[in-house]
């Protein structure tokens, strides 16, 4: 039962919500009592630290540990919300080639030995070296997709890469378990026929749906403050991420926030969406 699961959060396309998702998903796992590490693979353009609100505490980074300039314990930053959560920041100044495959493997193994239950790998956008390194050692993959044509196509592309380049694929082991996560979903626009529905996207990509995160203004407030969106009080986006974590842990949770709700008089007066 002490087995570590490595989960990559990936998409191909940029700006769809990978880092937002990595931060909230890892925080959610930790809230549920699982010892979790979240690793930023976006070397050169680190941002997970800002979203997690620990940017002022970064001393050493992923590349320092790979180059044996610092120990993993020195580089891991304990999250301010949870005892169970640690952040490994990416390097801000080097380039992606600094992520040597043997180095990445060694560090993931070290995290295993430290007793982490989940290691969440926040992938950079694109399909280059950094993105490949983030998915190489994955046991499971969360494909973050917006209900929009270019994002769906890129997700399909990244699924192909996952099935070709992951260790599990190369070694002919059981394939990486794939999960679809739709983000920035607008039930209203789906209902008016302007936006692809979650059924549409699931049908196109043919992977199981892990959850639907509604488009929300709260995400910007969360990132402004350096607080993962899952911690926002009484926000559909926070509840939706909690549902995602529950489903990932094997619970049966019905989809929420995927249809437009009838608004009460107060909501209408106060302009709630």
């Amino acid at each position: 039962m002490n087995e570590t699961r490595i989960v990559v959060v990936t998409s191909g396309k940029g700006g769809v919500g990978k880092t937002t998702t990595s931060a909230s998903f890892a925080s959610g796992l930790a809230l549920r009592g699982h010892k979790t590490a979240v690793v930023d693979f976006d070397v050169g353009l680190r941002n997970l630290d800002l979203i997690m609100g620990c940017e002022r505490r970064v001393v050493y980074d992923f590349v320092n540990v790979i180059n044996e300039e610092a120990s993993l314990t020195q580089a891991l930053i304990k999250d301010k919300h949870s005892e169970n959560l640690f952040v490994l920041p990416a390097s801000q100044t080097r380039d992606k080639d600094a992520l040597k495959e043997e180095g990445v493997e060694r560090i993931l193994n070290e995290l295993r030995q430290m007793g982490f239950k989940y290691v969440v790998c926040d992938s950079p956008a694109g399909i280059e070296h950094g993105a490949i390194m983030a998915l190489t050692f994955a046991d499971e993959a969360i494909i973050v997709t917006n209900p929009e044509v270019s994002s769906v196509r890129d997700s399909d592309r990244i699924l192909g890469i996952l099935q070709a380049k992951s260790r599990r694929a190369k070694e002919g082991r059981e394939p990486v378990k794939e999960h679809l996560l739709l983000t920035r979903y607008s039930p209203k626009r789906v209902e008016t026929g302007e936006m692809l529905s979650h059924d549409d996207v699931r049908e196109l990509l043919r992977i199981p749906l892990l959850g639907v995160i509604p488009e929300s203004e709260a995400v910007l407030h969360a990132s402004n403050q350096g607080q993962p969106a899952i911690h926002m009080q009484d926000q559909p986006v926070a509840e939706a991420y909690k549902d995602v974590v529950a489903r990932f842990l094997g619970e049966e949770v019905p989809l929420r926030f995927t249809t437009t709700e009838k608004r009460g008089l107060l909501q209408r007066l106060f302009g709630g969406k």
Partner: protein
Amino acid sequence: MSLLRALFRSKSQSASVAKDRLQVLIASERTSGSPADWLPRLQKDLIEVIGRYVPVSPGAVKVEMERGENLDVLEINIVLPERARKAG
């Protein structure tokens, strides 16, 4: 309407939090760079300089940095070999 605005203001003020955080971060990244880059070099230089006076093994020079919200602490710990200490 002003009551409504006042009610919702606290929420919209997160932009100023973002601006403050970014100002601090960008200023420190522009001036001193990332400690991840210069700490290993500092450690190397220290070993070299101290080595000119006292024989020290590379593992004897420990450089630790702790960063807090308002204060950063740089701790340098040098363990001198037994003989050098007696001579000094």
